[in-house]
């Protein structure tokens, strides 16, 4: 089966591009930050520098692992779902479920290894750049030399591989539809995330305005709440669609499509909610903090600067990663709909109307994602602002929010429309026949 897996990767490299991209980006982030452990571990590095580097590596390394897993899992699930016909064929030619699982896992391993290998170079450059940032801000001594060593390698490769293998198992299980138990686990996880998020956000009030750790509880609260909302995403989407009046033929079709595919769209909605919540909450709180420090006339401590660098890096990484994920999964999901678009066209839809359907779908997804992401972000921002300043809603929030929403809307609708336009180039009759 491993031979078959290799053949299948070699024959259709394009199919695995999405997974390769996720693995590559994930491995780059993990190795870039874990190289800070290597750098800090060198002899002769002073205590302050070492701590800064270790904190950065620890925090972002953890995030990175989660993101990589999430990213690879969602791209692989799409990949496996689209190959249902091929797997049915294999099953009919005598492949056991175990052998099919072996093939998918084998492919994932090959792609993850390639991704991690490709990531080594960029990670070295990225690590060097990151160290330079720390040195420029005075958080790390100039004398510290960059090192890319065992920690970076020993985390980058195994984590990417593990994420790929785990995601592959999950994808096969999901595709074969034996996932009744997952429902209960998911509900439990959703409520745990929502409760923990609410508790974290509320606990902000237990801190005083000048506590160094004040930003942590609301930030975690916002992230956990957005994870909870994201897990509930399909249900939320269905609830919103029930209250939505259909607008025109395209809107009518879009609403039906979204309702039918709510489960499959969960990944896209999850990315949108996480993106909106994390970016809005972190950037707004950092802006409030900066202004508060400037107003009090105090000079920032190294810890405060560390936190700011970290905040901005984490947000930067999440933003880029989630954007790539969004583009990735939307592209895959839309290009897969060639046959469906063909059927719509044969039933009398003009290309413009098909694009209208895709656009309307993107719009609804964006609105739902942004709405719940904003709610989660506000749950963190409001307690923080109340404790740190005397206001309830900081004036910085609006600008940040508008920028975040603009990016989310542009990425979601843009990817869908551009992909659909490409797909529509195939004549309708051929589009319908190709997948039949």
């Amino acid at each position, binding site marked *: 089966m491993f031979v078959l897996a290799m053949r299948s990767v070699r024959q259709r490299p394009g199919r695995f591009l999405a997974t390769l991209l996720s693995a590559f980006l994930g491995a780059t982030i993990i190795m870039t930050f874990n190289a800070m452990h290597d750098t800090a571990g060198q002899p002769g590095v002073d205590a302050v520098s070492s701590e800064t580097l270790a904190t950065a590596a620890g925090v972002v390394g953890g995030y990175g692992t989660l993101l990589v897993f999430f990213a690879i899992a969602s791209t692989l699930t799409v990949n496996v779902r689209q190959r249902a016909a091929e797997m049915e064929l294999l099953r009919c030619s005598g492949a056991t479920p175990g052998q099919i699982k072996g093939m998918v896992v084998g492919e994932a391993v090959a792609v993850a290894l390639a991704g991690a290998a490709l990531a080594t170079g960029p990670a070295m450059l990225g690590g060097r750049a990151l160290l330079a940032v720390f040195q420029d801000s005075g958080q790390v001594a100039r004398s510290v030399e960059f090192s890319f060593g065992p920690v970076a390698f020993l985390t980058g490769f195994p984590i990417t591989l593990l994420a790929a293998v785990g995601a592959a198992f999950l994808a096969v299980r999901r595709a074969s539809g034996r996932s009744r138990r997952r429902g209960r686990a998911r509900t439990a996880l959703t409520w745990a995330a929502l409760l923990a998020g609410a508790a974290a956000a509320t606990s902000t009030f237990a801190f005083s305005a000048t506590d160094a750790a004040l930003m942590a509880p609301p930030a975690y609260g916002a992230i956990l709440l957005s994870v909870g909302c994201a897990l509930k995403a399909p249900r939320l989407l269905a609830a919103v669609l029930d209250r939505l009046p259909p607008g*025109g*033929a395209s809107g*009518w*079709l879009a609403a*039906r*499509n979204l*309702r*039918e*595919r709510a489960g499959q769209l969960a990944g896209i909605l999850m990315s949108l909610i996480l993106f909106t919540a994390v970016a809005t909450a972190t950037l707004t709180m950092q802006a409030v903090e900066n202004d508060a420090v400037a107003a009090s006339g105090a000079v920032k401590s190294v810890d405060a600067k560390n936190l700011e660098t970290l905040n901005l890096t984490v947000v930067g990484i999440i933003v880029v990663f989630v954007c790539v994920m969004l583009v990735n999964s939307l592209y895959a999901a839309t290009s897969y709909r060639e046959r*469906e678009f*063909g*059927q*719509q*066209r*044969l*039933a*009398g*839809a*003009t*290309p*413009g*109307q098909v694009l209208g359907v895709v656009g309307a779908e993107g719009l609804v997804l964006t609105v739902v994602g942004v709405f719940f992401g904003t709610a989660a972000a506000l749950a963190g921002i409001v307690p923080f602002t109340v404790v740190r300043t005397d206001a309830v809603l900081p004036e910085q929030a609006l600008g940040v929010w508008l920028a975040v929403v603009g990016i989310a809307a542009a990425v979601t609708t843009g990817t869908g429309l551009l992909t659909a336009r490409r797909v529509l180039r195939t*004549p*309708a*009759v051929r589009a*319908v*026949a190709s997948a*039949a």
Partner: protein
Amino acid sequence: MTALDGVTLGLERGTFTAVMGPSGSGKSTLLQCAAGLDRPDSGIVRVDGTELTGGGEAELTRFRRGRIGFVFQQYNLLDTLTVAQNTVLPLKLAGRRVDRRRVRDVLTAVGLGDRLGHRPDQLSGGQRQRVAIARALVTEPRVIFADEPTGALDTRSARGVLRLLQDAVRVHGRTVVMVTHDPVAASYADSVLFLADGRLAGRMDAPTPDRVAERLAHLGDDVPTGV
């Protein structure tokens, strides 16, 4: 490659014509050109007295919407829509008013009045094809093009589908053009056109299955076949 070459063909309003020929004879290409789904390199297609113009897909789609109905071998119903929703889709897309009573009547006429809320995957092949026919009829088109409408059906379901197409002609005065390779299916038509290697190879009025099969078996005799 030339799929069709020098075919000139005019069909009377209110007739049921079957187009037959071996695989690769250009049957489907003929149908797709006539329906504006494919464009001939040269030649003119007229539907209901109006020439199919060489505009973009949007223009051709708007042209088709009001005049042409389709039935395909693979049904081409949208899985996300119910029977009733699939049927009204062309009306919705054309921005026309949807008369619920009429939709129910059309679906009742094809024997699916009690399945309005079902999804295509809950129906048999024959039932799906009848939904497709209802969808083609609901816009009251001049012409209905059917590409192997019974190709995926058992004989009983096929008979039901063919009777519906016959009724569209005899009761509602529509024109039906059906591509098929089944002599029994062709015998439901008023006349049969034979196609071989992209050229017209004969015509038969008042066809019976036996005569059609006999003619098909000898279709290659008088036409030189290239290898």
